[in-house]
């Protein structure tokens, strides 16, 4: 663990004088001081600096102003709470958005010289399967002068099986890496040594470097493990060392295997699939210079015109992906600032309304000698208190939210630090100051610009709120539009989430265990697949096993399908539908009984067999009008196989078994027979709790061939957990933002209308005396509010419908948004608006002319 934690070091740099910083950091390191020690030091220096330097700046706000502000906040708890809630929401959004964008833009590997590490991307021809990485690796290593080191890494697809002495089998996430790369990384093994160049030499004994968690989980942290062999991925390997948990390079893994330096192979003679190149820039060398040199050393390949030319090489920062994020950052910043502007503007309107309602009191203070600066200071003090509370809450909530995200998404790269850094906190403080200035000082300056004598003469009703009337109306309109748009999005997300969670009724999700299986040898795909199915079926408690390219909740992509229409039939002949390849027994295993025709048999997958298909009930309803589809033909390709489309005879019909969980309207789909391939999904139906089968399944598959890799062994209920968490998070965030925006708008409407009634009491009294009807009074009062609400609702509805078109950017399908969403959101808006207008309207109607004319 670093002492002190990295995020506190940023704070220390902000407040500790530079001359003392090294000493303070050194003391914390030496005494192994944690976050608490660091924060105490931060606070001590912050107070010291504030007293000595910054206090003079804030001299115009006194303690009595702050006490008075606190009293006013207590007197109007609803308005104050609404302002705090809105500001907190805005600052939370600002803090999280800035942190994410900053990390994406400027993240580097979190160790010294981490910014020298780069990715080397070779843009190979689209149809080429040649591993140019090996040739490029050799060229760059031998000749590149701009790079201090060239490395190669590969992530093993799936987890390698670790077979323990007790017979237990565990899955281990494994990374392949050029062994001499570890000397460039500042991590010391807890036991043994790192991988060295000799570990990648031809004929070297198989070795492995393991991670601390694995060491403690299965080997009790024993020092004797170094030098012993473990059986990982079907190979007996010597353990050369144990790395600490904080070592995660290049990605989270529990074991590191050496790549041989000649072929970049791991356990096979050929290069490991998915090998990528990494470089370490020499000091003083730029990425651009390295890229220029590597392009002269790149391998050559034939282009479309059959002419040899060097492949194009790109050198990018290892951690930050600049191309997309450089465009995204200003957009994110713009959205944050716009959100803050709208929220702060609304709070300013509220504060101005409150200030105007105290015009008499302020006029009296001015008449008694208080200067304008003092009165502005008092009004600003209230907002200062609200801003401090909101900033503190906003930072705390964003820290908690990002910690949750960090736990919910363990695959986030290790170099991404989701804790707010010093620049984020500076950004938040700056936003808070802007909030105080805009929502506190500016309305205060407006309210106090009128002559106090005139204000007293006119009973505090002097001064023109005209500007605030227009500004307030605009702010409320924008806020309503944001609220409606966000709530529309939230409702759609919630619908998608529910659809995703429920899944198709026919699938017995609570009895199914799924796994992703990756096979080692192409020549034995068929044999191994059958062996895996047989081994799984033999486990106690299993009453169904199947293989497929997709399981429910892993929606297959939409594919083009031609339907063979008979003459005179009015059918759609060219459609797009989701399709999956399934083996015999799969549909039964997930709970689908064939309702018409037959299921797939082994013979359907045999070479030369007639192509067949099974469709689901939604497909029959949607594309055959409910008519019997057996014997009819569809033209379609085979999912996940590079084979041309063929005409297939429909031999069976099954219920909806989840080809489109996220969007039920796209459920109409088909199944084709499964042909063996390198990776497939295994489904195991159990009598009891499917989680109890996890270890036995691992052991059974390892017994078939320990080189078979498994991953994502989870009950079907947990498939797509990441997507569910994402959708739930998005829905929650949008509901929070939308509700906050709506609440702030409604409170603003109420406050402004109340203020208007107070200000116009005499006018209303005169109108009533001259014969104005109640309808006329209410219409005059509520016209502008109704306009703001209506215009905002219309704009927000359009924005909401547009926002949900962005669902196509998601990796999984979401239901289309129908116009039914609009009334769902508008009804609560109308009700809330009526409530906000009711009390002021009731007061206006209760005004008696005689009483009103006496009003000062």
């Amino acid at each position, binding site marked *: 663990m670093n002492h002190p934690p990295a995020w506190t070091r940023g704070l220390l740099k902000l407040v500790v004088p530079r001359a003392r910083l*090294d*000493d303070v950091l*050194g*003391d914390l390191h*030496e005494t192994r001081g944690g976050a608490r020690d660091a924060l105490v*030091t931060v606070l*001590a*220096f912050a*107070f010291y600096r504030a007293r000595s330097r910054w206090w003079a700046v804030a001299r115009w706000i006194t303690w009595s102003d702050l006490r008075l502000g606190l009293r006013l906040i207590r007197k109007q708890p609803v308005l104050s709470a609404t302002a705090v809630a809105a500001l907190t929401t805005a600052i939370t959004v600002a803090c999280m958005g800035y942190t994410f964008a900053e990390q994406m833009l400027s993240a580097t590997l979190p160790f010294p010289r981490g910014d020298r590490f780069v990715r080397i991307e070779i843009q190979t021809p689209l149809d080429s399967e040649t591993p140019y990485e090996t040739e490029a690796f050799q060229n760059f290593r031998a000749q590149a002068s701009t790079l201090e080191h060239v490395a190669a890494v590969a992530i093993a697809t799936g987890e390698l099986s670790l077979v323990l002495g007790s017979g237990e089998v565990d899955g281990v996430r494994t990374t392949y890496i050029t062994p001499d790369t570890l000397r460039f990384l500042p991590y010391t093994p807890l036991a043994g040594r790192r991988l060295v160049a000799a570990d990648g030499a031809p004929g070297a004994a198989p070795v492995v470097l393991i991670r601390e968690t694995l060491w403690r989980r299965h080997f009790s942290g024993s020092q004797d493990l170094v030098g012993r062999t473990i059986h990982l991925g079907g190979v007996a390997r010597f353990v050369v060392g144990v790395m600490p948990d904080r070592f995660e390079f290049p990605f989270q893994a529990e074991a590191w295997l050496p790549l041989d330096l000649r072929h970049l192979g791991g356990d096979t003679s050929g290069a490991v699939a998915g090998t990528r190149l990494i470089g370490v820039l020499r000091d003083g060398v730029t990425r651009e210079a390295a890229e220029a040199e590597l392009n002269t050393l790149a391998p050559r390949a034939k282009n479309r015109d059959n002419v040899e030319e060097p492949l194009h090489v790109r050198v990018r920062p290892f951690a930050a992906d600049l191309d997309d994020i450089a465009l995204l950052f200003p957009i994110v910043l713009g959205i944050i600032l716009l959100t803050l502007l709208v929220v702060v503007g609304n709070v300013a309107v509220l504060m101005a309304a409150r200030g105007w309602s105290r015009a008499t009191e302020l006029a009296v203070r001015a008449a008694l000698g208080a200067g304008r600066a003092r009165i502005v200071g008092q009004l600003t003090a209230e907002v200062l208190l609200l801003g401090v509370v909101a900033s503190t809450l906003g930072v705390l909530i964003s820290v908690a939210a990002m910690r949750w995200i960090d736990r919910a998404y363990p695959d986030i790269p290790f170099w991404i630090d989701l804790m707010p850094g010093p620049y984020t906190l500076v950004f938040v403080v700056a936003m808070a100051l802007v909030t105080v200035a805009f929502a506190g000082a500016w309305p205060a300056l407006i309210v106090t610009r009128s002559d106090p004598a005139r204000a007293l003469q006119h009973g505090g009703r002097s001064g023109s709120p005209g500007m605030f009337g227009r500004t307030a109306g605009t702010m409320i309109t924008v806020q309503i539009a944001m609220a409606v748009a966000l709530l529309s999005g939230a409702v759609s997300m919630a619908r998608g989430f529910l659809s995703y969670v429920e899944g198709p009724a026919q699938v017995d999700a609570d009895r199914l265990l799924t796994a992703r299986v990756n096979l080692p040898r192409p020549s034995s795909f068929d044999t191994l697949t059958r062996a895996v199915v047989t081994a799984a079926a033999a486990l106690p408690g299993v009453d169904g096993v199947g293989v497929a390219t997709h399981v429910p909740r892993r929606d297959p992509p939409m594919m083009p399908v031609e339907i063979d229409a008979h003459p005179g039939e009015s059918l759609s002949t060219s459609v797009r539908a989701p399709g999956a390849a399934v083996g015999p027994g799969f549909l039964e295993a997930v709970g689908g009984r064939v309702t018409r025709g037959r299921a797939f048999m082994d013979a359907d997958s045999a070479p030369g067999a007639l192509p067949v298909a099974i469709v689901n009930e939604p497909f029959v309803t949607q594309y055959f009008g409910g008519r019997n589809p057996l014997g009819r033909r569809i033209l379609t390709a085979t999912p996940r196989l590079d084979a041309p489309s063929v005409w297939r005879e429909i031999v069976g019909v099954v219920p909806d078994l989840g080809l489109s969980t996220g969007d039920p309207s796209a459920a109409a789909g088909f199944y084709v027979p499964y042909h063996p391939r390198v990776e497939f999904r295994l489904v195991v139906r159990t009598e009891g709790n499917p989680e109890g089968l996890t270890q036995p399944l691992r052991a059974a598959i390892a017994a078939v061939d320990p080189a078979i890799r498994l991953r994502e062994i989870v009950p079907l209920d947990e498939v797509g957990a990441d997507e569910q968490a994402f959708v739930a998070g998005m829905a929650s965030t949008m509901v929070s933002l939308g509700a906050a925006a709506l609440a702030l708008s409604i409170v603003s409407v109420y406050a402004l209308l109340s203020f208007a009634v107070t200000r116009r009491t005499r006018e209303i009294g005169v109108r009533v005396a001259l014969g104005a009807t109640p309808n006329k009074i209410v219409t005059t009062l509520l016209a502008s509010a109704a306009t703001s609400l209506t215009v905002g609702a219309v704009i927000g509805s359009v924005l909401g419908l547009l926002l949900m078109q962005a669902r196509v950017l998601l990796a999984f399908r979401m239901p289309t948004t129908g116009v039914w969403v609009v009334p769902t959101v508008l009804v609560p808006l109308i009700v809330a608006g009526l409530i906000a207008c009711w009390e002021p309207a009731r007061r206006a109607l209760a005004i008696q002319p005689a009483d009103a004319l006496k009003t000062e």
Partner: protein
Amino acid sequence: MPVLGEFELLVLLAALRLGDDAHPVSIVDEIRLRTARDVQRAAVYVTLQRLEDKGLVSSWLGSPSPERGGKARRHVRLTREGREAVREARAALQSMWAGLGRSLEES
């Protein structure tokens, strides 16, 4: 001559005792050892900063060391003004203490 606060005086006295080995960590230990007070190192940092601003102590950086993560240690020593301030504080305290010993024992 600036008037010393109580904690400022403790820090100066600890620095005086420690001589060339005076630095925040050793000052904390010295005060804890001699007064049994639980002293926060952060308070010592800020106090040393204030004393240096007042010209009562001066400081210099030692050599970096691996135990300190490669960071150098900042040592402090009293300046002439600092010694004078301590002498004045002692004289003031002695003057206030004079004759109080018996009444403290009796109460």
